């Protein structure tokens, strides 16, 4: 059967995501209306607080960066057949290690940053790799182990926060990382008189660079997405990992070492979360980790991001930006319209919900196409029958004559 243009259009994941987002806003509007807020104005305010000023855009990018990383990690895992719900724990581990290492180091900048990044990535990769090992060797499902490891990471983080060596007196957190590990754009120059003067004369830069922690994390995230995309689709390793993710039996049959693949996939996924953690700690104030009573949800939000992006690494960049934007803009919604920020959670929830349901849309279109084809066929048959009847009548007439 030929696929109709319509079917092709609605089979595209990008189109489906847009549909889900529109539906998310529609449902949010409805709820706003029911709660007594003007929906049109509220949505406008929300969008305005996301992208209204250059500072907002910069803030959205900053807010999105860690979520893009965790989203990337989760998406990568999904592509390789794993559900890394432990992104949260891996991110927390990354933060703790980055802070520990960063607060002790005093090296020239590139070396210091590199050491923080590598140590955070390594620890997060090992933390996730352990989950992979348990799955590969003992068949324990990764969701179970990684959820439990999330809690272990949280309490490990809190324990480290309380250790004399790391605990900064008078706070509930650790000593922040040293300046030499900062990954903001020109962090020191910004504070010099020269810098201040320069920024004052350039309002756009003043607003973005001067007022926010604009850092290189986002650029690294984009590069990471490109690398992951390349790794998955163009390399031997990626071929292996995807084969295992799609059909572990056929992969094993074809001679792929599936156990090793599972461990490697988890490690790469964890490393991405660790990378996000390193750039969060080095790139944004307060540059430290505090004692947590609950998860900060950076990893869990990564799940949603991966979901909205249909596990496409490149898609994660945009999904992450949307997500970060909604989180950031939600605060504006509250201050300007008075609508509770929870409305943002509803929007996000609905978008994820419709993304999950969107596989039904192509099917629905298929059914529509089939029905149309059927109708056409009926019409054709009817026409043919009519023609035959006419001819029969003609013949009868002839016979009569």
């Amino acid at each position, binding site marked *: 059967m030929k696929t109709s243009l319509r079917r092709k259009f609605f089979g595209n994941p990008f189109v489906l995501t847009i549909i889900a987002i529109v539906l998310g806003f529609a449902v949010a509007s409805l709820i706003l209306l029911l709660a007594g807020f003007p929906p049109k104005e509220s949505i406008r305010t929300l969008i305005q607080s996301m992208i209204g000023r250059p500072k907002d855009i910069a803030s959205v990018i900053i807010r999105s960066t860690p979520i893009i990383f965790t989203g990337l990690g989760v998406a990568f895992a999904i592509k390789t057949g794993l559900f890394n719900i432990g992104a949260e724990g891996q991110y927390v581990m990354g933060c703790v290690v980055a802070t520990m290492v960063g607060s002790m180091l005093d090296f020239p900048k590139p070396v210091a940053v590199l050491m923080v990044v590598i140590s955070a990535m390594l620890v997060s990769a090992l933390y996730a790799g352990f989950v992979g090992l348990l799955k590969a060797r003992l068949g324990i499902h990764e969701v179970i182990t990684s959820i439990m490891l999330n809690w272990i990471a949280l309490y490990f983080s809190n324990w480290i926060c309380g250790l004399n060596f790391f605990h900064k007196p008078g706070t509930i957190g650790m000593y922040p990382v040293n300046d030499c590990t900062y990954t903001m754009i020109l962090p020191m120059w910004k504070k010099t008189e020269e810098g201040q003067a320069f920024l004052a004369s350039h309002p756009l830069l003043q607003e973005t660079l001067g007022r926010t922690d604009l850092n290189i994390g986002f650029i690294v995230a984009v590069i990471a997405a490109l690398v992951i995309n390349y790794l998955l689709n*163009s*390399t*031997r*390793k*990626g*071929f*292996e990992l*995807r*084969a295992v993710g*799609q*059909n572990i*039996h*056929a*992969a*094993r*049959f*074809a*001679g*792929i*070492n599936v156990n090793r693949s599972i461990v490697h996939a988890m490690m790469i996924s964890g490393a991405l979360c660790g990378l996000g953690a390193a750039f969060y700690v080095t790139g944004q104030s307060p540059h430290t980790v505090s004692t947590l009573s609950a998860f900060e949800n950076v990893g869990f939000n990564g799940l949603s991001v991966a979901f909205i992006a249909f596990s496409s690494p490149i898609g994660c960049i945009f999904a992450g930006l949307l997500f970060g934007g909604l989180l950031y803009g939600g605060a504006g919604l509250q201050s300007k319209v008075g609508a509770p920020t929870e409305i943002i959670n509803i929007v996000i929830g609905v978008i994820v919900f419709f993304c999950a349901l969107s596989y039904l849309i192509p099917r629905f279109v298929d059914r529509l196409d089939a029905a149309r084809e059927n109708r056409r066929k009926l019409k054709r048959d009817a026409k043919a029958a009519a023609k035959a009847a006419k001819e029969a009548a003609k013949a009868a007439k002839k016979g009569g004559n």
Partner: protein
Amino acid sequence: MAAEVSSKYAVQMHGITKRFGSFYALTDVDLDVEKGTIHSILGENGAGKSTLMNVLYGLYQADMGSIYIGGEKVDIKNPTAAIEHGIGMVHQHFMLVENFTVTQNIVLGSEPTKSGITLNMKQARKNVLEIVEKYGLDVNPDAKIRDITVGMQQRVEILKALYRGAEILILDEPTAVLTEQEIDELLAIMRNLIKDGKTIIIITHKLKEIQASSDMCTIIRRGHYIDTVPVKGVSEDDLATMMVGHAVKLVVDKAPSNPGRVVLDIQNLYVKNEQRINAVKDFNLQVRAGEIVGIAGIDGNGQQELMEAVNNLKRCKGKIILDGEEIQNRNPKYGIDRGMATIPADRHKDGLVLGFSVYENAILEKYRSEEYSPGGRIDRKKMRSFAEELIQAYDVRPEDCGPRLAGGLSGGNQQKIIIGREIANEPKLLIAIQPTRGLDVGAIENVHKMLINERDKGVAVLLISFELDEVMNVSDRIAVIYDGHIQQIFEQGTVDNRTLGRVMAGGTVDEEELKAVKAAVEAEDAAALAHDARLAAIEAGEEIPEEADKFATKAFTPVTRAEAEAGETAAEEAAMAAQAAADAPADIIAEAVAAIPTETPEAPAEATAAPAEAIEEPMTEAQVRENIRALEKQLEDTQKQLIAMQQKLSEMQ
């Protein structure tokens, strides 16, 4: 044939047809089960037994046909309706809540309550105990499911059905998971149930159990009803033959094999199954370069475990030697790297990554070579060109399928990709497991041709199949697997289905008998060929010298003697003759065959290219010989025509 609708039958299913897409799982199947009996449904894997029972249990709706319960026509839309009609089913895979107790599981969904609100587990326990005692089921109602054995779990499933008032109990492969001891206990339980007037239907492909348990047996083959027979009157061989059917002589164009060195040598192999019982035991087999060894056997006799061990998917004891090197207990890659290629039985599970494109599937093994991924980067151009070549060479359709997902292709085309991929590795050993399962006739022929091609190239081919026809037609040697070991090995053309069926059921054939069988098979072949030649000559309007005609007819005589008087047409004669040869007791055939050389000169046999053994020294009359040459030519021409027609036919398909 279908019995009259009557209340003496617990279940009657008449003219049941069930289609899945364009595939007919069941075609006009009848089943009549008398009340108070144990009735087996026998058939190979995929024959349609489970489908038939799922129709009865309301899991599927039949496209055609009617169901009668106790003589009343019923419409079973879903399992709830089936339960209401007193039908209970115990599935092969149990559906129990692991951490509930036996009682909780049994009453689940129909719990007794106090005044309709709170559960009355005391009452439930009492009810369960009553049934347990009544049928001697011996289950502890308070034990948790996860703590009891598989055999006990099965009893709980039976209890579940009985608790819901089942009068008719369907057991799907009930012994597949049981130990010998548990099987005996199950049989005793079944007898108790029958005593109480219940009716039991068992789905199985195990012949022994039918003998041990059942009163009647209905045989289904490839979705068609074959027969219903009282179990007392038939032997296991008869059942086996009915289950697998008679060999259909497919035209498999193949020269005699030319075996070379030993490529695969399996020595004293032991492999455990999921239940940690040895499913393969003391298995020995050699496959040589340039020959096809077919493993015939009923499903579940260790084929699966054998394949898993050889492919390094499972640990084993013993030796698997590939071209002089031990390869057992390594990893799948180890074998592949050393020249092993496998066409797996389940192409969706093991053969293809359905979510990958055809391109990617084509290089599922090659991808890791430096050639296809230099420096770790997949060479897409190379991948594409290789895959396109494969698509061309194996005529995979649609032609532009390359970038599409493999899951979207038809089964035959998927199989072509797998075979093409495996053969492209230029293996020393090619293992084909059920390579034609689910394919249509044209595709089957193609697959067989490819296997024979590989053999002729000097590859050692191991064919594992449950399709007896396939094994008999394609293999050079037929090794029968039974209960995890090789029961007996036969050369192709020396054995008939009936004999194989008996060996597959655990019997053996001694030398003398084998000789008789071999002679019978050869006589049958010779007779058929002679007859064909004669017919071809007649068709061509050729004048057949009286003498030659006499010879040709005479060669036929031994096997047609019984039918000769019936005055059937020649074509029917041939068919009947073959039938007679297959059906006649071995000693009669031996006698008949013994008569051939003395009564008939060798001419007709030679004329028809019969096996050399059947031929003695040349003829006396030169004239007759010349006519025979003409006959031979005729035969050749006809065969050519036939092949051309078949090709046309397969093209049309």
